[in-house]
């Protein structure tokens, strides 16, 4: 039985009408930019010739038209700069080096793209990405992203609640968990040629976690379609769990009866549990879980239980020993 869907949280809520679709504001920008286009491109050229400009060219282009409706999250923390979000990525399918991911992922073919939703559901279906975008309108969600490696970002995602998709395929009464799978294509994803993890990357959620309103399938960030290095064309975002739960470039979603074994649980079961809720009380042998470095600022900050979303999600784990179910 799926748990009842919790009431929509007040914070971060933006009605779809508040968000200008990408193509509209892009054309507005083009109009504004029209006269100064030549000047701008001259500047861009001179900027590129300067020795040692960090961002890869593709990411620079992406961030030129970055857009977010707010400048902070609901706790008042500033959004992480677009260039950091698109150039500092943990995506082992491409590289173990965070800054090598963007250039290596540049040519990932994200269209056409299909997501097969099946398993214990009454109406299994394979969706084309366009179907998903048409059926489930995107909304902006500004979420903190806390990596298990003790760094964090604040990211303005575009996406839709996973619950909307799950309701459409009608989970069977025997379905208790959701299993997600990333694309497996070593030709496009050179990191998959190395045996760092057992590919494809697999993640899982309990059904009530998956149905929670905070859980989204993201298809964009900073007002634009997701760039490949951030999990294009569609990825999971579960903001109260460590970043590795938010699986990227999803091709398969299955409803299942038993808890799925995630790629990281398989690689190191003592270090990575199924739940992986952000929890300062569960230590890790390598990284601090009591504090974190917010990318773009110098001081360390205390890590909040459930990454600051305790009010919305703590009830999901009532009565559970979260040190045991880490």
């Amino acid at each position, binding site marked *: 039985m799926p748990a009842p869907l919790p009431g929509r949280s007040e914070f971060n809520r933006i009605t779809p009408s508040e968000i200008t679709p990408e193509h509209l504001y892009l054309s507005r920008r083009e109009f504004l930019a029209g006269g100064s286009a030549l000047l701008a491109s001259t500047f861009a050229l001179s900027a590129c010739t300067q020795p040692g400009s*960090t961002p890869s060219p593709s990411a620079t282009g992406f961030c030129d038209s970055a857009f977010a409706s707010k400048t902070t999250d609901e706790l008042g923390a500033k959004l992480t700069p677009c260039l950091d979000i698109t150039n*500092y990525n943990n995506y082992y399918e491409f590289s173990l080096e965070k*800054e090598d991911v963007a250039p290596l992922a540049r040519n990932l073919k994200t269209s056409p793209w299909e997501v097969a939703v099946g398993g214990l559901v009454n109406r299994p279906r394979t969706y084309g990405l366009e179907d998903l975008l048409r059926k489930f309108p995107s909304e902006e969600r500004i979420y903190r992203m806390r990596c298990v490696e003790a760094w964090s970002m604040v990211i303005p995602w575009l996406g839709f609640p996973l619950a909307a998709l799950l309701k459409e395929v009608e989970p069977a009464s025997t379905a208790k968990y959701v299993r997600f799978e990333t694309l497996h294509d070593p030709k496009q994803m050179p990191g998959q040629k190395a045996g760092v993890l057992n590919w494809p990357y697999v993640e899982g959620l309990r059904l009530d976690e998956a149905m929670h309103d905070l859980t989204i399938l993201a298809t964009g960030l900073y007002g634009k379609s997701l760039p490949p290095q951030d999990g294009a064309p569609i990825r999971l975002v579960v903001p109260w769990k460590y970043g590795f739960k938010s699986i990227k470039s999803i091709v398969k979603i299955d409803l299942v009866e038993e808890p799925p074994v995630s790629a990281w649980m398989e690689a190191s079961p003592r270090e990575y549990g199924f739940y992986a809720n952000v929890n300062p009380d569960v230590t890790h042998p390598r990284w601090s879980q009591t504090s974190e*470095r917010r990318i773009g600022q110098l*001081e*360390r900050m205390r890590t909040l239980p459930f990454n600051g979303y305790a009010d919305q999600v703590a009830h999901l784990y009532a009565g559970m020993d979260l040190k045991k179910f880490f």
Partner: protein
Amino acid sequence: MRRPGLAWFQILVHIFALAPLVRLLWDFTQGQLSADPIREIQLRTGRHALDLLVLTLACSPIYNVFGLKAALQLRRLFGLYAFGYASLHFLNFIGLDYGFDLALIRADVADKRFIIAGFAAFLILLALAATPIEGMKRRSSRNWRRLHRLVYAAALLAALHFVWQTKADFLVPLLYSAVVVLLLILRIPIIEQWARLPSKWLKRRQGNQSSSQSH
């Protein structure tokens, strides 16, 4: 300089050892230390410290095998630079990263074996760097030598520190560990004697040649 030629070697070592620091400072001013500069500083200083520590350990075997005296004369310099980078590594950790917040450090450090191993290695290097060389060497040569054998413990701990902090790709840290173990094996007395054979043989041959030439 007492020995001609020594200064030249030393200058090369200074340049070699300081170059990564210069590059680090340059990249810092250029904003080239990734989105997470504290981590980048930590990774680079740690790697340079370990590189220099390995070079320190390599000096004796290089002297034994090739009979290169200069290697022995540079050992101390490599060691001091290794300590220098280890200090930057340590200071970046407690200062820039943790802002000298001792309560936070204590909460985070206690259960992290990689930090304990790294800190132990740092304390050993500190002790070795702090021992006054010439005076103490003269006064009790044996004790000084015994103390300085701890550099092998420091290197093993540093290699362990590297392995234990690794998340997924163990190749490089395991290679470093293998090199450290190999350098340690080369100091086992019986192996050390074998290792000396080529240079001894070379010396003898040179000696014979020069003596036959003089006839």
